[in-house]
């Protein structure tokens, strides 16, 4: 029997299932920026007045769990299907952040090899003032196991 995508959506979308605190290490931000080929001082120099984490670093901040604790097993090993980052305000290294995670979308695509199910987890990052500074989406792709 196929997994019912609409049922999963009605049960799990938009419900926070994880909350995690982060303190961003400036040295790690510099390493990520430089290894990515970044040259701008606002990403590579902690002394720069606009020093901030690049999107790739924000994408590395992941919640403690990938899915809600009671989410059903769908099939094989999840693959990393991609990441998206929206920057609402500069993410300052050294500051404390809180990431709140929910399932943002569930959809499927069918092909010759069967059905793939896409799960999009969204982490919204807030600074100490409660300002929403960034949104990070992680797409997991799972090949559905034939029942």
């Amino acid at each position: 029997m196929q997994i019912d995508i609409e049922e999963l959506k009605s049960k799990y979308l938009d419900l926070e299932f994880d909350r995690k605190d982060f303190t961003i290490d400036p040295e790690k931000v510099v390493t990520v920026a430089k290894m990515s080929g970044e040259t701008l001082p606002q990403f590579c120099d902690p002394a720069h007045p606009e020093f901030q984490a690049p999107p790739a670093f924000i994408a590395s901040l992941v919640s403690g769990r990938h899915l809600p604790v009671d989410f059903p097993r769908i099939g094989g090993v999840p693959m990393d299907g991609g990441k998206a980052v929206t920057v609402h305000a500069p993410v300052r290294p050294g500051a404390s952040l809180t990431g709140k995670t929910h399932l943002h979308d569930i959809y499927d695509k069918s092909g010759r090899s069967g059905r793939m199910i896409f799960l999009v987890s969204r982490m919204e990052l807030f600074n100490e003032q409660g300002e929403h500074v960034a949104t990070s989406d992680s797409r997991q792709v799972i090949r559905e196991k034939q029942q």
Partner: protein
Amino acid sequence: MSAISNISEVEFGVELEPFEPDTSLAATSAFAEAVGWTDGRGGRFTDHEAARKEGFPGALVPGIMNMGFLTSMIHRWSPVAEVVHVDTVFRAPVIADEPCTISAVITDVDEDECLVELDLTVKNAKDETRVFGTAKVRLPAA
């Protein structure tokens, strides 16, 4: 190609100057360690042999490192560009120590909102697309 300094200098359809990022094992290892992806991942970003034992063709460039390559290219094109949104799809692995090329093309220019949209691609030496995506970038007004 001179660096873009404001929205009026952006032309629809123009390709950004491609660049070849550093995909060396030393770079992927440093990146993976900085983001905490060396624990419990069996050396897939740091060791070719360990990655092959996991079934990969070799050590991998972390997916988000490709995102970093793409946004770095945007900043080379315009040091005043703010990447507002970037979305990357990991279609296939990018292998460490193998060359790849980063490219981008401008697909939309909104002069009123000072926003530019780009299509982004990471290809390997066989010209196969490994990562693709889009970005939305804010530039200063003219």
